[in-house]
């Protein structure tokens, strides 16, 4: 039995110490993933918390027993989408400039972050999962619900796009 399966079994038996252990194990990665999709640290913390709350609520579902990591990322993705939708519907016109804050921050941080942010949403998500969160291709496919081959081709296409953009920016020598 894997460590993960063992943890789940203990939680099922009602030992909540193991629930803490499971959360502590995945919290940093889920928080980082939420940070990619939210404006700031506070919202990312809220999103990460909501992710684990949903995980607990749907804990009884057997379908994801052997792929907790992918399941958590899937929940996190849904939480971030929900938060974005809610924020858009609540946002007043004068606050619209706030939406770009996260992007501006990313621009200051690194060219790579800016380039990833500029990718189409479906490619951006896969690049974040694969390179930002270090998920395997199979896990990326589980999270996004896409076939493995689609994940591979989209990633390839995203990488080509980033490479092209870097070359345009005169950085081609760095990778040769």
């Amino acid at each position, binding site marked *: 039995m894997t460590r993960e399966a063992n943890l789940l079994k203990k939680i099922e038996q009602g030992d909540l110490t193991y629930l803490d252990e499971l959360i502590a194990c995945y919290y*940093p990665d889920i928080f980082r993933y939420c940070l990619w999709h939210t404006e700031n640290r506070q919202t990312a913390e809220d999103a990460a918390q909501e992710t684990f*709350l949903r995980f607990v609520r749907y804990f009884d579902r057997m379908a994801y027993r052997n792929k907790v990591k992918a399941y958590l990322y899937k929940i996190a993705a849904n939480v971030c989408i929900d938060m974005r939708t809610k924020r858009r519907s609540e946002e007043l016109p004068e606050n619209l400039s706030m939406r770009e804050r996260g992007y501006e921050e990313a621009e200051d941080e690194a060219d790579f972050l800016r380039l990833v942010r500029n990718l189409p949403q479906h490619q951006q998500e896969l690049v974040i999962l694969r390179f930002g969160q270090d998920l395997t291709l199979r896990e990326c496919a589980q999270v996004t619900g896409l076939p493995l081959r689609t994940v591979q081709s989209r990633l390839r296409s995203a990488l080509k796009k980033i490479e092209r953009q870097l070359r345009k920016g005169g950085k081609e020598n760095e990778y040769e």
Partner: protein
Amino acid sequence: MNMNKKLKQELSHYGRGEWSQDSLQKTCAAARAAYGEQDRKERIGFWKFVIRQIRFAGGSLWILQAAVLIVTCLTLDIHLHAGASGYGPLGFVLSLASVATAMTGIPYLCRSVRHGMYETETASRVSFAGLLLARLLITGIGNLIMLAAFFALASLKMPLSINAIGYMLLPFSVIWLGIMVLMRLACDQLLPALCAAYSIIIMAALFALYQIVPQVFGQSSVLIWNIVCIVIIAGLAWQIRTMAKKPAYMDGVSM
């Protein structure tokens, strides 16, 4: 440096170390509280679930099937006494009886849709595939007994080859295939009515076929009935497999 490695190196630093121990503690506390609020249910095995389903609703289904069996047997007996003999008339009445048999399962299979009960049932820690399989099993047992009784009664009146079972199995599987398709696609309270209407249409089609081309029910056509029957049963199996994944009316259920 390789593009993939460089990208991984750059992106993996993003947000690292920004989370606070305090927020992790808060999350753990909130998750513990949420776990405590959950109404933990006992996990039950498939056969235990089938027995519970029999006690819950299977009994009434079997009573209905027994009533239909008695009424149909009496009708069949009267019809056979009235001079219906030979493969043609027998094949026709057997096919009608099999449609009536298949129709008995409609109220039971559609009961969740009728009462909007899927939320409750999927919360019972049994997968939808398990729920569907249990229902098909309970309905199927009653139906098989009914079909066997009809065939035995018809055999008493006239010696029938085992191939004549195709007269019953073909309309029966056509009805079930239609019910499965409707259950997979339909998503409203009209589902039981749609299934019943479909069965009545098949019954009317059989009647029309008997009136227009009675040779279809003749002994020479038995082989064709059986071949078509195998194809339909294969389609039915595929349909059940597809439906077990998730039917349309489950879309509203939070997963």
